[in-house]
């Protein structure tokens, strides 16, 4: 049921017409944006914290190879195993191999956007393994067979009635007459069902919010505690992570944690922060595997999109984006929606994501709230320029801009053209507005154009003089 990034406009249209979705998206302001604002106001020098966070992430990118090697050495020294994967297919095969060697069948999963990025669950299922999502939001969408719609709140687009329906359909062993219309009851039911999965799992896969090179540690941040039950109970724990997540040491993690939780949910810290260096499973002979995934990240280094690698996946940009607020995450048809997706996807995925950097007004709110000061609109513009140079922009737009630029560079021609245009528009007006024009369908599909005065400013100014 994965949407296609090329069908963005049709998917956006469907989203705009979805009243349930619109009501769910209204929570972006009240639940996320306002909470973040309170947390920022309560911190004092939040701008200083952002500067510190940016400097830490820039240092990581500038020293990425060295930090990854140091990280690997320290993980291995403490009994872990490090694997490197160039792309999604390699990562899938590595993980499958680890699971097969461990004789694993049921695999619990902590929330991992990277695992969505590589399509891990589908790959495991087609190889007779049973992945069970344990983050409540991920569990719900796994039952509904749909992808996450938000980077930190996968089921953000749903109302509790839809969750109830998914639970009733899936938890068939439970009493069909049970009352399930309260959030608390839904959470309790998920807790009970998933506890069984936690105990039975042969292996656990989590992501990592940060990798700390000096200590060889992976850090995961949850509110539910599911990440910890995923990694502690089975005999095999696999951490799947992008290579860009590494920082120098745990002091760097401290700064980024302060930024992450405030920017994401307005919390000063999440309920659980787990720092793991070495096998942590409680059964004897537990194994700890780190899978480092590139999948297009390294090739962004040294380009005008490099700063996107600073991202700590807080989703503040999504929460403040007026386009995301209007259409939600599924319309993008890619793992990472919203402004970070718009800045990342043309590099990570390619030209099929043309619409992502284009469906933006460059309002700049995303850059304003980004905890590590990624210049998101600047990066989106860079992708637009690349697409333009590659001839991938719509032909009509290229032609139109060509005509406009031709005139704009020739003042006398421009003034003449403007005189003609303003008169033509005035002539076409009825009751103070132009109601339609054959050439600019995009404008007139939803708006009138207020009638112009009928003479240009330049000609009126000259007349005055």
């Amino acid at each position, binding site marked *: 049921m994965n949407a296609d990034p090329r069908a963005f*406009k049709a998917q*956006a*249209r469907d989203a*705009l017409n979805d009243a349930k979705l619109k009501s769910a998206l209204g929570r972006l*302001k009240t639940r996320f944006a306002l909470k973040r604002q309170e947390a920022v106001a309560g911190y004092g020098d939040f701008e200083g914290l952002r500067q510190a966070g940016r400097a830490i992430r820039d240092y990581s990118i500038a020293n990425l190879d060295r930090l990854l090697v140091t990280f690997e050495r320290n993980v291995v020294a403490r009994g872990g195993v490090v694997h490197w994967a160039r792309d999604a297919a390699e990562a899938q095969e590595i993980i499958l191999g680890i699971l097969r060697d461990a004789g694993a069948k049921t695999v619990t999963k902590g929330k991992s956007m990277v695992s969505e990025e590589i399509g891990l669950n589908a790959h495991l299922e087609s190889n007779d393994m049973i992945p069970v999502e344990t983050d409540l939001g991920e569990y719900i969408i796994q039952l509904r067979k749909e992808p996450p719609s938000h980077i930190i709140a996968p089921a953000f687009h749903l109302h509790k009635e839809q969750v109830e329906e998914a639970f009733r359909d899936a938890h068939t062993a439970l009493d069909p007459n049970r009352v399930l219309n309260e959030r608390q009851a839904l959470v309790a039911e998920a807790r009970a069902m998933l506890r069984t999965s936690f105990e039975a799992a042969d292996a656990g896969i989590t992501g990592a919010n940060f990798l700390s090179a000096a200590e060889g540690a992976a850090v995961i941040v949850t509110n539910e505690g599911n990440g910890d039950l995923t990694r502690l109970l089975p005999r095999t724990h696999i951490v799947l992570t992008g290579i860009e997540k590494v920082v120098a040491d745990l002091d760097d993690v401290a700064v980024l944690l302060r930024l992450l939780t405030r920017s994401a949910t307005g919390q000063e810290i999440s309920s659980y922060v787990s720092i793991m260096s070495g096998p942590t499973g409680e059964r004897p002979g537990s194994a700890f595997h780190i899978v480092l995934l590139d999948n297009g990240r390294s090739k962004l280094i040294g380009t005008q999109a490099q700063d996107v690698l600073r991202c700590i996946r807080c989703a503040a940009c999504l929460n403040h984006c*007026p*386009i995301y607020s*209007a259409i939600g995450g599924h319309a993008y048809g890619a793992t990472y929606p919203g402004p970070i997706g718009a800045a990342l996807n043309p590099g990570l995925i390619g030209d099929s994501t043309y619409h992502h950097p*284009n*469906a*933006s*007004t*460059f*309002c*700049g*709110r995303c850059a304003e709230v980004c905890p590590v000061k990624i210049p998101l609109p600047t990066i989106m*513009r860079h*992708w*637009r*320029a*690349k*697409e*333009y*140079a590659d001839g991938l*922009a*719509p032909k009509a*737009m290229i032609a139109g*801009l*060509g005509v*406009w*630029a031709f*005139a*704009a*560079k020739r*003042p006398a021609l*421009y*003034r003449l053209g*403007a005189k003609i*245009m303003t008169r033509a528009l005035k002539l076409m007006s009825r009751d*103070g*507005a132009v109601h339609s024009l054959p050439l*600019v*369908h*995009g*404008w007139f*599909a*939803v*708006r*009138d*154009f*207020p009638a*112009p*005065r009928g*003479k*240009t*400013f*330049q000609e*009126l*100014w*000259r007349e005055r003089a």
Partner: protein
Amino acid sequence: MSARPRVGLFVTCLVDLVRPQIGFAAVKLLEQAGCDVVVPAAQTCCGQPAWNAGADRHAVDIAWQVVDIFDEFDYVVAPSGSCAGMIKRHYPEVLKNDPRALALAAKTYELTSFLVNIRGMKAVVAKCPTRACYHDSCSGLREMKVRDQPRQLLKSVDGLTISELSNGEVCCGFGGLFSVKYPEISERMADDKIADAVATGADMLIGGDLGCLLHLEGRMERQGKTMRVRHVAEVLADAI
């Protein structure tokens, strides 16, 4: 610097084409603020549509033209946060930090912030007995730090009350070519902004960027709404 600074008025293509009265209002206000205003005839466009679309070569050519035309002035003032923002915030990147581009950027301003922050204007003599709401354009707000200045001047307009929008920091959905490339999303964003404006009980919407205003006014006309839409320069120059 002479006692009466020479200001080059950057008219903007939309004002020139659609609402020349805004240009006249801007001149009046600048003269009231003690400036000598010149309107270069050779100006056309700031190049933002080309730059935002990634048509970099066009943007560079147009930017050089603007630099050539305007670098003789003490200040360059535009009745628009987005055009002023293009010159001030983006020309350095467009023209690769050329010293002439940096010099122009340093002396380019949006109109109301120029009047208040540079010329020290505290009040205007104007009358507009109505309840209005003020729309902050994203570029004005974020690129040019325009927020308090128009409000300060509007406070002095006789009979005018400004009611604040609940979600003033949210984009109206114009975004230049975005408004025609993604019309349905643009429509939703306009409707949210309009609903916010209507909820204030205002019967006039005032703003500093004509692009936003034409988009919102055009949408309101399509919906049969009767709220008046005016540029802040028109209100301040007593020329509504």
